[in-house]
């Protein structure tokens, strides 16, 4: 019996037969996985069989909330979207914020599972549990802002919240994202899954209330959390005003802001053009997710050339890298325009920018020529070409068709040694940290269940110098296996499952992370955990995600890094001379598998470990 936080219900929608049904959310699933990404991984493993076509009707799209969403807990309007990733072929989890997650909870559900494939373009309209399948002919082909507005007008309700895809998702490009408001469930190509299902959007209106187990306990627990937030020297004084892009200044100083397809990190460090001082000349306001007192998201207005007048929510730090450093572009206004264009067309800005930078390097090396590019001069720094390519990828036009399924697929098609320049792990393009100067961050990229993903085990200790659970020398391999496991499990348990904004953890909650989650869980849901049990939830979810990938055929060899990072030391900047050599990577991986309780040769979780985590049925399926 649920006492609060949860609605206790799953809504299952089948697009093929246009049916919906409500199911109970088993209490033991809530207890073992808490919610959010934990639920997504659990239902993906249990319901999507090994070998399922990512773009076929048997793949599922799972929207899942945590028990904190919609309560008075700050910074908790978050939601995981999970599917088998068309980009990596493994678990695809992406989290988004904004207002849609709370609306789903108010609609009465913790989990929404979308199955099958609609016969023709459809959007699903859910009003307080009443489900309608509506013709999306009118919005098919629209950009994401227009799509949301047209649906609101059609439903005659401006308070409807919508999760949708743009043309990129419709065209099933494997780096397509899902957009709600101006927020993205950005990575792993989940927009393509939606497009493959002929599902343009999910529109919600919910008016239900969300109870909590103990209002008094919740008030006290939130008080502790807010105290930590207020004491942070960073959260309100800086982060609320600048947001994530302040990290440009830091990573440029550390010599790890990746540039020119990771060939010029440290040497080309466009901090004057893309750093905070330049950013502030474009800031025109900020946005808050529901129930967030911080409001880190900055609105920026482009001011020069043909980009003048373009407004975007962002670009976040990652996009400053992908459309900035990675492509050699240091024109702030083109990065703003690129960010808006990618959001409108529905592409993941990280993967899109990495693909463009990859093509630019191949062009400069003569592996791609103007014959391949349709006359485009794809040199590093060509911002007009960058904008053109974003468009071409979304519509699968010309060379855009070659690049839009990610750099791994593109390199395979191009041949001629192009794979050497493809910056990805498990098919997922690398985010904005040149891990040659941050080795735990590198180990996380090599081992995270989603591929090279900064949000699944961020090494705060190296990048931000936070000494919890212990300080870490960014150039050393020492105890990095243990640290990476801790980062992955704690971030899963504290952020991705309950769900809580991942930015609050490093800025305010590191010293109280799992205690804080345990206190909030007890107050909101009545479920009691020790801090160690909270961490175990993260470990359980990470092991189950790993098991899904093993079932899909991933092996130890997939836990690696792009060749460039293993063989080419950084040439300039504060990380000059560093790399992660093959031996160093092996050393860190060996330690990581050991502390995880995984077979060091195969990287497969042992039966003993799976049983310890209550995942005996998974051990049976894997045959371990």
């Amino acid at each position, binding site marked *: 019996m649920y006492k609060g936080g949860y609605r206790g219900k799953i809504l299952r929608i089948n697009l093929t037969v246009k049916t919906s049904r409500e199911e109970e959310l088993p209490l033991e699933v809530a207890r073992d996985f808490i919610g959010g990404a934990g639920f997504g991984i659990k239902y993906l493993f249990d319901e999507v069989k090994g070998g399922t076509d990512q773009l076929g009707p048997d793949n599922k799209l799972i929207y899942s909330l945590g028990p904190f969403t919609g309560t008075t807990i700050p910074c908790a309007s978050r939601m995981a979207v999970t599917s088998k990733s068309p980009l990596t072929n493994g678990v695809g989890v992406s989290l988004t914020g904004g207002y849609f997650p709370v609306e789903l909870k108010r609609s009465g559900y913790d989990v929404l599972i979308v199955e099958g494939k609609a016969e023709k373009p459809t959007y699903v309209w859910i009003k307080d549990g009443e489900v309608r399948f509506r013709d999306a002919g009118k919005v098919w082909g629209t950009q994401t802002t227009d799509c949301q507005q047209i649906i609101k007008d059609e439903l005659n309700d401006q308070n409807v919240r919508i999760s949708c895809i743009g043309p990129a998702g419709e065209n099933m490009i494997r780096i397509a994202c899902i957009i709600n408001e101006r927020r993205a469930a950005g990575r792993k190509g989940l927009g393509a899954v939606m497009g493959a299902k002929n599902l343009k959007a999910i529109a919600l209106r919910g008016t239900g209330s969300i109870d909590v187990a103990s209002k008094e306990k919740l008030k006290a627990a939130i008080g502790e959390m807010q105290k930590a937030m207020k004491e942070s020297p960073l959260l309100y004084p800086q982060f609320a005003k600048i947001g994530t892009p302040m990290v440009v200044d830091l990573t440029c100083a550390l010599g790890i802001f990746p540039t020119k397809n990771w060939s010029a990190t440290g040497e080309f460090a466009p901090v004057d053009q893309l750093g905070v001082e330049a950013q502030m000349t474009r800031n025109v306001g900020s946005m808050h997710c529901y129930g967030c007192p911080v409001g880190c998201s900055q609105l920026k207005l482009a001011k020069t050339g043909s980009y003048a007048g373009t407004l975007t929510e962002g670009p976040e730090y990652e996009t400053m890298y992908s459309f900035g450093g990675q492509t050699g572009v240091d024109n702030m206004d083109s990065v703003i325009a690129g960010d808006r264009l990618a959001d409108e067309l529905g592409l993941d800005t990280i993967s899109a920018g990495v693909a463009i930078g990859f093509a630019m390097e191949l062009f400069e090396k003569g592996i791609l020529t103007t014959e391949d590019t349709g006359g485009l001069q794809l040199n590093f720094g060509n911002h007009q070409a960058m904008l053109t390519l974003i468009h071409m990828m979304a519509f699968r036009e010309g060379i855009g068709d070659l690049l839009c399924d990610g750099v791994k697929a593109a390199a395979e098609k191009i041949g001629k040694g192009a794979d050497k320049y493809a910056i990805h792990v498990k098919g997922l393009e690398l985010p*904005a940290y040149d891990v040659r100067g941050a080795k735990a961050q590198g180990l996380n990229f090599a081992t995270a269940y989603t591929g090279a993903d900064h949000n699944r085990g961020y090494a705060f200790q190296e990048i931000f*110098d936070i000494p919890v659970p212990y300080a870490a020398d960014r150039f050393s391999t020492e105890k990095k296996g243990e640290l990476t496991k801790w980062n992955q499990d704690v971030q899963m348990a504290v952020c991705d499952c309950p769900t809580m904004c991942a930015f609050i953890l490093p800025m305010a909650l590191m010293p109280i992370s799992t205690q804080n989650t345990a206190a909030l869980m007890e107050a909101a849901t009545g479920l009691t955990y020790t801090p160690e049990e909270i961490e175990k939830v993260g470990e359980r979810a990470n092991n189950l995600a790993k098991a899904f990938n093993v079932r899909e055929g991933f092996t130890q060899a997939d836990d690696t890094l792009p060749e460039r990072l293993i063989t080419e030391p950084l040439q300039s900047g504060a990380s000059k001379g560093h790399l992660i050599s093959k031996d160093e990577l092996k050393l860190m991986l060996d330690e990581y598998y050991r502390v995880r309780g995984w077979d060091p040769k195969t990287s497969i979780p042992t039966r003993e470990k799976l049983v310890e985590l209550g995942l005996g049925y998974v051990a049976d399926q894997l045959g371990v």
Partner: protein
Amino acid sequence: MLPISWVFRTLRLAVIKVKVYTILGVKKIIGQGELEVSISQGSTVQTVLFWMTKTYGDELSSHLFEPGTVNLLPHIRLMVNGRSVRFLNGMETVLHDGDEVLLLPPVAGG
């Protein structure tokens, strides 16, 4: 025995140059992101910090130190040649000619 002029010349030359890089709030206070500091051989990170606070005054001191003390605020980050001084000899880390010191205020996000 060495000629005395040689000893003097050597002593006079025992000055090293290090570069200090900084960002955001600290950069704003000192008006630049990069500066070269000449210090005597054997100087430490602490020497550079004291030189900087003497040069740039109270505003910089209040950014770096706990009020009324010479204790560095816990979130201020110091690095020599990219490595945190936590893993060197802390504030006592001895600097060498050409070393690069990073003085970083807190940043997070990403």
